[in-house]
């Protein structure tokens, strides 16, 4: 097994708003190992994007990391100065966001922006010609045809799929060890999505770049990830191997998410939609945040929040598996019986 590249421990993030301080992330912990692809999945409002932004300290001005650590190469990113962060961004960790049109500057050519990105992270002076050559190589690597000519085009002259490839090329310029892709394929057609996923897998295989893939699409997660973190209301409610998560989900929320995906096999039957909604951060219930939508909730689930437990090689936050609670007061679920403590 490879070594841990990034370790997130007890990460807490809040947003300061007029309505008060909102807990966006609470005690999130997981790790990304070298060359690993880790998926983060959940409904909107679960804190997936906040997590992606917090790891690189790209939170909006009203967001703040108030607890926990993000260990990357022996350093805690949460405590780095702006200058130190700059070293990590780009060469250590790079990001690709959902909408490449808002990430690229419309007034500059792709080449100018790529050279700027290179200069921003370079110590000595490299000639513009050399940087341009590197940029063309990078574009060619991600499958931009005729890159030597296309590099002088502006972002609007590329299609959506090509723009996303450009974003990936820029992210890879400094050969980062970790690439964070936040809904990087969500705006694309299935064919382009598959092309980009294929590209990410190739980059992972050839360069050993670890990837943190944030997506609401369970199909995308199943397609490329080795490990999966399931988020709900700012908590990592389950974390485990991709086969464990999809074959034998432990948390009732993970099960419900998987059951709600339409497929030809469900034809003629009602889909298992989860009742209710993700709770607003303004009014989070005191106990398990999923309790009011959960089929198995017991009184204890409403009273206090479950701890993160290690069960069958995964981590899960659910009283189903908590032997600290008397068996009679624990929630019960037929499908989880084998793993439930006696």
């Amino acid at each position: 097994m490879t070594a841990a590249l990034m370790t997130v421990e007890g990460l807490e993030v809040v947003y300061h708003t007029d309505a008060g301080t909102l807990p966006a992330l609470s005690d999130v912990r997981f790790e990304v190992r070298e060359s690993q692809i880790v998926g983060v999945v959940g409904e909107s409002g679960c804190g997936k994007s906040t997590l992606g932004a917090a790891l690189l300290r790209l939170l909006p001005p009203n967001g703040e990391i108030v607890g926990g650590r993000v260990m990357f190469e022996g350093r805690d990113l949460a405590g780095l100065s702006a200058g130190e962060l700059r070293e990590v961004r780009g060469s250590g960790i790079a990001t690709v966001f959902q909408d490449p049109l808002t990430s690229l500057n419309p007034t500059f050519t792709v080449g100018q922006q790529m050279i700027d990105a290179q200069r921003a992270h370079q110590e000595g002076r490299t000639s513009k010609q050399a940087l341009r050559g590197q940029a063309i190589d990078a574009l060619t690597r991600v499958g931009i045809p005729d890159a030597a000519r296309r590099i002088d085009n502006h972002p609007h002259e590329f299609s959506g799929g090509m723009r996303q490839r450009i974003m990936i090329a820029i992210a890879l310029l400094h050969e980062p060890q970790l690439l964070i892709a936040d809904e990087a394929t969500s705006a694309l057609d299935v064919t382009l999505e598959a092309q980009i996923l294929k590209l990410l897998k190739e980059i992972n295989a050839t360069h050993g770049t670890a990837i943190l893939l944030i997506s609401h699409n369970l199909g995308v997660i199943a397609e490329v990830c080795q490990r999966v973190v399931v988020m709900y209301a700012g908590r990592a409610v389950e974390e485990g191997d991709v086969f464990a998560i999809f074959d034998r989900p432990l948390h009732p929320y993970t099960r419900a998410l998987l059951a709600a995906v339409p497929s030809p096999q469900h034809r003629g039957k009602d889909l298992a939609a989860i009742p209710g909604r993700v709770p607003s951060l303004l009014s989070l219930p005191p106990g398990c945040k999923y309790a009011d939508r959960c089929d198995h909730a017991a009184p204890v689930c409403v009273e206090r929040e479950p701890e993160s437990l290690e069960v069958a090689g995964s981590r899960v936050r659910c009283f189903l598996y908590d032997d600290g609670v008397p068996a009679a007061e624990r929630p019960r679920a037929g499908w989880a019986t084998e793993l439930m403590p006696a």
Partner: protein
Amino acid sequence: MSTAADDTRTATGEAGTAAGGAGTAAGDAQLLRVRDLQTYFSDRQGMIARLTRRKTGEVRAVDGVSFDVVRGETLGLVGESGSGKSTLARTVMGLVPATGGSALLDGRELIGLRPREWRPLRRRMQMIFQDPVSSLSPRFRVSFLLKEPYVINNVPAEKQSSVDELLTMVGLSSEQADKYPHELSGGQARRVSIARALALHPEVLFADEPTAGLDVSAAASILNLMRDLRDRLGLTYVLITHDLNVVGYFADRIAVMYVGQLVEIGLGDRILAHPRHPYTHALLSCAPVPDPHLNEGHLENVLGGEIPSPHDPPSGCRFHPRCAYADQRCTDEAPPLEDLGDGELVACHHWRRIDLAPPSAQPAAASAAPSPAVGPTV
């Protein structure tokens, strides 16, 4: 220039008399009959171009499309962005003027109608638009938005459904009546759009990406609602989506569109298990399935290239530059939409010859041989 359209017309025209129409299983129950529909947009919208009436070029968004919709069925319309799905729906709905062709609703010609003539027919055909929040006016409360169709159509009060009835029908509580669109969640806004569309008791509902932008759970409950309404009200749906999981779950028949033309129509089960057109096969093979066991080698044969612009479509078969099976004939000659009977149609010169394995992403294909290389050719 328009050989493709001509071919299509011949093929489906003959079929119309012989087998009861393009893509229809039972000819007598067809509610909507579309023949060789064309929607061209002028390339230059500038003042000079309009004044001089100079034809500088045109975008053939819908280029000779024929299909039938049977009463009570759901026809799924799939294809990549830019294939013309939404324009096709908007043209049939009369929201975009057709350039040519015919669309019959219960035998009544819709193409070329004046706005006044449209009004009684629009009640029978409604549309749920793509982005529900922006398609609901932000300045009005839900209660007014639900009454608006009655005002526009001068429906007498005794024939109107109450706001409460409409809200209940789509599973919303009466408290939602006083809200503004921005106060609704994505799923709720979608329900209001559906209620608004149903206010006039339509027979056909065009649903343009009804689950796009929704979380998996909210999407599931919208699909449940649409199924329930179909059963209760006997609605006929034309479901436009790029989500193949949704279409596989919901549609009885599937029509696949590529650069303004239909390339394949058939029963949903058949298309998903045994697509005939290489494009259908490639599209299905791309769809990510939430099962890590089925993904081994799945991305190896991903369809390369991008959908060409309808402004300058490729010669011959429009799919030929991306197709692994294309030969000289495909470059030269547009394949007609061949009617195979029983509502099965396909537009490919080689479909009889080529042997498409079940799409790799479909669960049925888990143990099957790897699909043939539908490799990048662009």
